[in-house]
């Protein structure tokens, strides 16, 4: 198999992001970061494909320099290479310029059979980037996949659809986004981690290397704009706590369930 390129995003853990209703700003400073779960699943699928069919697994990410360490974690999981697309001008991008930057880099890497991404990122939760990258590369797409097999030069992918799943086949380079949890991602290998940190050279490409003008990337190249943030008010539920010992609680629960069945 030729190159397998995996699009990886680093995201803050949602539960650590604090919203300040007064300033309407998000405080991400205390948030711990991690590789997006679905992307970790994608890395694992890539590694398994390589173990069977050969080729190289290349991680690709657009983001600030702090992403470097997380990409190295991916290298310690077993990826062959990692490239970070980082430039001041790339900041504030919505999906359109993000897809443009990533697809430009993918074309520069070249020689690929498969692009993998996560089904969606937990912070933005758009799930639309994979389709946009595929469009820019003019390759077919298969989204929400739970299994990817390479057989006789063809890719066989199982993807989720409403109420079930489909098995599809395509040949030639293809973009596949994978479901979080489709496979269990392996842990970074300790020896490889040492190498990833001290021996491995992570490539960083900026807008000059990608030959992208400032106007088409980042905030300037974005087509959508966040006008404001609003705290979602919790639902107006009764929140009545039922006290007592297990016996009393379960009696009350049984009653509640029976009452409600008669309504």
């Amino acid at each position, binding site marked *: 198999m030729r190159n397998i390129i995996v699009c990886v995003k680093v995201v803050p853990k*949602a539960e650590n992001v604090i919203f300040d209703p007064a300033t309407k700003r998000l405080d991400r400073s205390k948030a711990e970061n991690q590789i997006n779960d679905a992307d970790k699943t994608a890395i694992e699928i890539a590694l398994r494909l390589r173990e069977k069919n050969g080729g190289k697994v290349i991680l690709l990410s657009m983001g600030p320099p702090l992403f470097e360490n997380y990409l190295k974690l991916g290298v310690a999981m077993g990826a062959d290479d990692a490239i970070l697309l980082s430039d001041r001008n790339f900041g504030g991008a919505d999906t*359109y310029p993000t897809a443009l930057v990533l697809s430009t880099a993918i074309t520069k890497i070249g020689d690929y059979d498969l692009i993998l991404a996560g089904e969606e990122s937990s912070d933005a939760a758009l799930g639309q980037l994979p389709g946009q990258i595929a469009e820019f590369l003019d390759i077919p797409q298969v989204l929400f996949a739970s299994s990817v097999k390479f057989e006789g030069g063809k890719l066989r992918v199982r993807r989720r659809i409403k109420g079930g799943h*489909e098995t599809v*086949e395509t040949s030639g380079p293809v973009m596949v986004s994978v479901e979080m949890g489709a496979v269990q991602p392996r842990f970074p290998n300790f020896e490889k981690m040492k190498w990833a940190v001290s021996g491995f050279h992570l490539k960083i490409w900026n807008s000059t290397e990608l030959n992208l003008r400032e106007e088409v990337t980042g905030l300037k190249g974005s087509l*959508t704009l*966040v006008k404001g*943030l609003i705290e979602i008010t919790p639902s107006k539920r009764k929140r009545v*706590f039922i006290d007592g010992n297990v016996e009393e609680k379960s009696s009350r*629960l049984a009653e509640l369930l029976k009452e409600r069945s008669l309504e």
Partner: protein
Amino acid sequence: MIKKELWVVVERDGSEIEDVSLEILGKSAVIAKSSGYSVTGIVLGTPEDGVVRDVIRYGADRVILLKHERLNQYSNDLYVKVLYDLISSELPAALLVGATYYGRDLAGRLAARLRTGLTANAINIKMDEKGLLVFGVPAYGGKIMAEIVCETARPQMSTVRPGTFSKVFDQGKKGKIVEVVPEISKVQDRVKVIDRKINKSKDLTKSEKTIVGGNGVGGDFSLVWKLAELTHSDVGVTRPLADKGIVPRELQVGTTGYSLKSKVALILGVSGSEHFTSGIRDCGTVISVDIDKGSEIFNHSDYCVVGDASEIIPAVIKKLEGKI
């Protein structure tokens, strides 16, 4: 010239229209009424007449039927092509698509080809004074809603989360029907469907009473089934349980599963992530059991029981068996 039209892509399975498409039609009709816009439903394939009529009754002023046998089944290559051609010649102000698997598969790529902005999973849509659509989308696990606009490009595109808006039905509503036969003889479908498996399991969105088990239920899920049987309820789960294959994915509740509209829902051992709670928002009474007093699920519940599910469930079963 951009037309003051709100377009809705109608997703259907044979003669059955997806609820989310009808919900978007309903919402669009409300927005259109107060702003001098009109609503167009886009139907693809060769459906029975009833489908087109229903699209009008549920809110469209006009239906454009992209009529071709090959469009009866969703295909990314074909759908993106025919919709791109139609939209770039008709120039509607907005295009809305249900955030279903097919809808999301379609929207990203179509937006890129149209070179326009796309918002995902809207849970709120309004039009501001300038006639700009403002899409509300949940962010960061749903604690926050971001308001997103697309100022410079057209159409303004968004996918819309199923179960968000209400359907509006008007039996006597009249509308125009325009048939277009797209030229797709040379378009290849690069992704070939070899096999399709639809689980004929219970449609959770129609469940009247549901018992939902989460990670806190522990290894033995049979007690949940037992409790469901005793109370004539259906069973749902949180995503981790579907991921582990304890029950089929079709029983998953939440943003990547189904939204419940049950009269009563009993929630067992669930932490209350927004990805989950968005799926129980429309339930009548919500009753929860969780071992952790501080569990977020209690903020989304009418009756809250702090306790160990492995003790509570068998005790409730005993009570029900004894008395029913």
